[in-house]
């Protein structure tokens, strides 16, 4: 029997597999395909104070082994989430983590304050890395000061576990991670999407209404693994790894590089049952390798 339990701050996960924000809806979208109770946790989509319509269509283009999106945080707002969605998912035997975004620090704080009233929301993931919004988002995530300011404010406002989701669009992601750790974040998750662009050369137009968007999928995995490796060496708080995980092997790359847990994102679009397959693979890998506790694999790269 392999122990798959990992802890992110005070948050106990039955296994290290989470779903990435914006790729798993609120969870019920996938209930036809998997038993949601099996997940280590699910990170519900980027939630803002006010409802947002997101960016105009087209918002997505496929690229080699990946896709670029420019959804722009379309969501119905935190109050709608609490009233209509939370009741549907609060009794899932897993952990609900709400991804929180805002145009300014006060927005983040207010969303967290409202979420805090609800017992089964034990954690938030602070999104300072969305490349697809004009205000907030990545603007906070690309400087230590910006990242620190949001983290400090959320830390004061939210008693539960605070994850901060980092942008890869920086020179030194370890520096940002340390800034966020210093302000009391319980964990950092990385990477968000890489700012990217694709052009329809016959029409001489960008494929996205916003010209640029965020690249995700297998294409970025080697970048993500490198950044997790750098950050895990730089901070003491647990690191959550994501970026192009398509299967269990990929998840183990992140864990060996130093991630305590992983998030599965784009792969949900291609294989909606991928999360449970990853959990099963990790358990099987541990058995094959004589590992009785998945925690002993974290950062266990032999180099």
């Amino acid at each position: 029997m392999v122990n798959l339990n990992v802890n992110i701050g005070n948050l106990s996960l039955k296994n290290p597999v989470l779903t990435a924000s914006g790729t798993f809806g609120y969870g019920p979208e996938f209930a036809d395909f998997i038993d949601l109770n099996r997940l280590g946790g699910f990170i519900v989509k980027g939630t803002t104070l006010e409802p947002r319509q997101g960016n105009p269509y087209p918002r997505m283009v496929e690229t080699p082994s990946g896709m670029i999106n420019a959804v722009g945080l379309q969501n119905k707002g935190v109050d709608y989430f609490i009233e209509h969605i939370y009741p549907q998912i609060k009794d899932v035997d897993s952990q609900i983590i709400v991804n929180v975004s805002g145009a300014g620090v006060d927005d983040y704080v207010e969303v967290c304050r409202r979420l805090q009233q609800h017992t089964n929301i034990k954690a938030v993931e602070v999104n300072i890395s969305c490349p697809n919004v004009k205000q907030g988002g990545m603007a906070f995530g690309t400087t230590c000061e910006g990242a620190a300011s949001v983290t400090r404010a959320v830390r004061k406002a939210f008693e539960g576990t605070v994850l901060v989701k980092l942008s890869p669009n920086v020179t030194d992601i370890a520096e940002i991670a340390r800034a966020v750790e210093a302000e009391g974040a319980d964990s950092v998750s990385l990477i968000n999407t890489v700012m990217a662009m694709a052009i329809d050369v016959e029409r001489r137009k960008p494929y996205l209404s916003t010209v640029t968007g965020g690249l995700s999928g297998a294409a970025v995995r080697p970048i993500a693994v490198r950044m997790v490796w750098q950050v895990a060496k730089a901070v003491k708080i647990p690191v959550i790894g994501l970026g192009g995980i398509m299967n269990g092997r990929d998840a183990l790359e992140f864990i060996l590089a130093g991630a305590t847990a992983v998030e599965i994102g784009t792969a949900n679009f291609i294989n909606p049952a991928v999360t449970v397959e990853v959990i099963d693979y990790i358990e099987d890998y541990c058995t094959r390798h004589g590992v009785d506790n998945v925690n002993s694999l974290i950062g266990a790269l032999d180099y």
Partner: protein
Amino acid sequence: MKRIIVFRIVSNTALGSNYTLMKLTPEDNAELPDTCPGQFVQIYVPDSKSTYLRRPISINFVDKKSNQLWLLIRNAGDGTAALMRMKAEERLNIIMPLGNGFTLPSDGERKLLLVGGGVGVAPLYALGHKLVDGGYRPVFLLGARSESDLLMLDEFKALGDVMICTDDGSVGHHGVVTTHEVMNGTFDRIYCCGPMPMMKAVANMVRNSGAECEVSLENTMACGVGACLCCVEPTVKGNVCVCTEGPVFNINQLTW
């Protein structure tokens, strides 16, 4: 309930050089799930280097007797080209059924027009069958670039009256569907699937005719299950996912 099903390809027949009609049955011979005309499936394309995401394809027909799913595939790029090359006995991983189908006629609605353009005729075949089974006699108006792009004509003719338009006049009426005389008739309900300009033209022509009109959109999508929010269409309710709120929309819901 949506399911991931591994299918065995029974046949994949070329219809001219740009289309195939693929017939599939579940590998494990399990009964196909219930579907409605207008719903679609998401296909994982196994052997295409440049295809990362699934490909959404309309359900052309579900033959309950033979437990077969039929798909009309157009060569629209590397992914669909790879599907067209697949052979009988090969396997395909498909998620289905997805989205909402066409609304069947209400009581009293008898005059039904089904307008298809190019490969957009695909879901109209399943719909036509359903309508005929319900005692209706649908009229089909099928448009295409050229004669070789008119698909499954014999099958449609077995279901009702078929009018034909081609852009190049190679067969039938020479011109786009909105210039065909049948469009001047009175209908209770119009179903339309084809290229966006065609659907918009039809919608604008019939908007004030008193007919209900539904169109089937094919916005670029990733997940097909309402998670990625990529395939949104602006509607009177704001941006909604074509994959879950559509692909079929009443034109009154759209901001066209």
